[in-house]
């Protein structure tokens, strides 16, 4: 398929025409719709129905609301490789509301939001960055004089798909770290009547964000997710199982101190605090900034930023994993040591470390505990 870059989605062009321009024949399109219908368990006419529905889709509307956040997720998205942000905004989607990029301010900006939600009701993709502070009637984040909660609830109503982008929208991130002074929560705690995809990470890799949007546009649905709501195409595997330094872990070759001889040979960072064994993330595969490098690749241990509540469960960041505050389960230390040379036991280690997180969560929040258990089943 040709990239959207060279083949913008133009005026009055339907999806099927647009795909034809990009080298996807009508026949392929109908075949795709039929197989899609089969996946959904529809009868033989289902494919034709889906094709008919998708054929008339116009350049889709994306509404991006930014709540309690640091704008790092926006910065990440504007680093996306393919499609680039320019292509995305001009050719692929209609980004009708984005604080960081839009020309209008104040009333004119808020009118653009209201008009777009009205005109595209039930059809737009809602991107959310930032958390929602609930303490003290939500006074800790307001836009246009309205609270983040009110804005999110309103925008969520007409959304066809909701994408929570980054750790703040996922679970509240740093402002939700102990003692969470503003009562910050993630999108899934506010929008409960439709699925929320979590593009986890602080920030997430831009390409995961755009791939998720493109997945929705191409396949007409959001990608499959794990129990944490994270797309499997990106978060389906542990860092530890994909890490190029895994061979050093298995061979017992560890960095003991930063910049020691082992560090200068690129050995495993487990002993200086790497959270790769407890973190599901696309970092090693997608890499960062047009595949330039990634945290472990640049010699720093993973801090586990795609995992819920990582600020509390993964810190102190430089302590060895089982000693980390959130874990504190001594026998797991031995387990990891014993497992070092045997790749097959990696799953057990993962299970054990995840169990550590679950134990902590169980004390705190039954809902998260439940989600975590499902996740464990999935990856177990």
């Amino acid at each position, binding site marked *: 398929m040709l990239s959207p870059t060279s083949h913008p989605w133009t*005026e009055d062009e339907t999806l099927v025409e647009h795909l034809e321009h990009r080298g996807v024949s009508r026949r392929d399109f109908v075949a795709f719709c039929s197989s899609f219908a089969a996946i959904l368990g529809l009868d033989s006419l289902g494919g034709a129905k889906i094709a008919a529905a998708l054929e008339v889709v116009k350049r889709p509307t994306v509404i991006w609301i930014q709540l*309690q956040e*640091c704008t*790092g997720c926006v910065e990440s998205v*504007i*680093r*996306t490789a393919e499609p680039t*942000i320019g292509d995305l905004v001009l050719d692929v*989607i*209609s*980004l*009708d509301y984005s604080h*960081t990029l*839009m*020309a209008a*301010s*104040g009333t*004119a900006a808020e*009118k653009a939001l209201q*008009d777009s939600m009205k005109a595209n009701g039930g059809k737009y993709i809602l991107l959310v960055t930032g958390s929602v502070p609930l303490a003290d009637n939500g*006074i*800790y*984040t*307001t*836009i*246009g*004089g*309205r609270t983040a909660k*009110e804005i999110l609830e309103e925008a969520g109503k007409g959304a066809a798909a909701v994408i929570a982008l980054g750790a703040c929208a996922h679970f*509240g991130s*740093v*402002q939700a*770290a102990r*003692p*969470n*002074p*503003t*009562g910050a*929560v993630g999108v899934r705690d506010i929008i409960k009547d439709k699925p929320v995809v979590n593009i986890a990470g602080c*920030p997430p890799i831009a390409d995961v964000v755009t791939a998720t949007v493109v997945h929705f546009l191409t396949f007409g649905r959001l990608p499959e997710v794990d129990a944490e709501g994270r797309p499997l195409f990106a978060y389906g595997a542990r860092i530890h199982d994909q890490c*190029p330094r895994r061979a050093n872990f298995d061979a017992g070759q560890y960095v003991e*101190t*930063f*910049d*020691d001889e082992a560090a200068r040979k*690129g050995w495993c960072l487990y002993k200086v605090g790497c959270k790769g064994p407890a973190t599901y993330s696309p970092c090693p595969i997608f890499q*960062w*900034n047009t595949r*330039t*490098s*990634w945290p472990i*690749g*640049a*010699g*720093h241990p993973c801090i586990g930023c795609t995992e819920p509540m990582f600020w509390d469960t993964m*810190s102190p*960041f*430089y302590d060895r994993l089982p000693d980390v505050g959130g874990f504190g389960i001594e026998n797991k230390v031995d387990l990891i040591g014993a497992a070092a040379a045997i790749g097959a036991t990696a799953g057990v280690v993962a299970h054990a470390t995840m169990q550590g997180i679950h134990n902590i969560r169980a004390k*705190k*929040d039954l809902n998260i505990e439940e989600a975590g258990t499902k996740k464990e089943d999935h990856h177990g």
Partner: protein
Amino acid sequence: MASTRVVVDPITRIEGHLRIEAQAEGGKISKAWASSTQFRGIEIIMQGRDPRDAWAFTQRICGVCTVVHAVASCRAVEDALNIKIPPNANTIRNLIHGMQYIQDHVIHFYHLHALDWVDVVSALKADPAGTAKLAASLSPWPNNSATHFRDVQERVKKFVASGQLGIFTNGYWGHPAYKLPPEANLMAVAHYLEALDWQRDVIRLHTVFGGKNPHPNFLVGGMASAINLNDTATINAERLTDIRQMITRAQAFVEQVYFPDLVAIASFYKDWGAIGGGTRNYLACGEFPENDIRDLDSLYFPRGIILNGDLSTVHPYDPMKVKEYINSSWYEYGKGDEAGLHPYEGETKAKYSGPPTPWTYLQDEKKYSWMKSPRYDDMPMQVGPLARALVGYASGHEGYKALVTEVLTRLDVPAAALFSTLGRTAARGIETVLLARKMNEWYDKLVSRISSGDTQTFVADAWKPESWPAKAQGYGFLDAPRGALGHWVQIEDQKISRYQCVVPSTWNCSPRDGKGVPGPYEAALMDNHPLVNPEQPLEILRTIHSFDPCMSCGVHVLDATGAVVTEVKVQ
């Protein structure tokens, strides 16, 4: 004449959430209020944590200035624990912070600020050949061809014809304050798109040394990226070459696109050299140490204070003269609302006292912002590129003197035009050029040290908490793209007992103090400031954007006691 009440909320194309209120009469702004409308409480969250983790937490104060809090935090902890980082680590941090400035300032100019001066719709009427001619008169940039400009114009035409205007919806197109001819507008639109691709490339320098951007990794005691020319997983010749190329491409774009565009566009808006000056006191804390950070004489951007716009004297900066007030802020102090507290004794207790949401106006309220009011020697201070340029110019810094003079000469405006909205925007370009050139020197320095056999990037002496004193405290300063930044840390029994930040956007966006003196945003909007049509507050955006607001940075919490200020049971 009756005055009109104006509310602009949200101010877009900034970091974070900002509300501006004003009163206007006869086409001029008479009064203005700046309200920050987000609060996160990160300093409360810092308490009781490992000081070596502090950089990661405070880095998340802002994802736009994504390295500045991390480096300031490392410096504060290194000051407290008396750690001297290796020269290589210092140079690598300079390269990272230098590229942060360059990338951030270019993004600000094209993607956050340009639409205040550039009418996108007018670009559709341009003659691409005319645009090419104009561009060729400014710079040798190879992409400035008529064919390229025609392609861009076609693309934008198709986009506009689709009826789905996306981010350009409801822009103030056709506003009489837009002065550029269509050809110049087309050039700026083309470079807007080009800059999007460029920034994505050059910022990879952060990824090489820090693993990712935004939020690259740092390390108390140095940098984690080990150097070994004979390994695949370390900083080696391949990665250094990549860095070398990025620096070259960064400098080329800055010198051949950004700076020429800036001067060309400014030449159509010279009247803005007499608008929006506001506060005439300027503070620069200094940045880019050539040697250890304690060697203040080795800072490339000098430190100092300018008072009342008097460039004949640069006063010394004394961090002990910083105090924060809360007369207009939603906090309370143990000593009462009138007290001004130095960060070492600062305290914060959030106490919202405004009207219930949704708000109509805040301008009748005594307190109206989550920002505090920092004051230096009880005076408001402007911080940022203009403060640095003025301190540099007045201190006789050769680079600043040459470029400031060049800009004033090319625009044919007097030095007084620096104290303005235009001056802030021009100063940003000036320091970007200086840094784009300086990056080459830092790169050469790093390579030459590696070549001589010094590959050290980290000192382990004070890494282990057992080696720390029972009590320690430190101050980390850094002059960030948006201005002077300070982090103060106190450590007790190996944990953070207090953490405090005084941040550039807090200086600039501060609300009125106890004497009723407005902060720099407010003062700028009340200084000979037009507002032709309150329904289309384009002029307000020009002046506010000239500060490059970063609201998430500006709002923070200082807590002297270590007590939890607001406990909320969510977990």
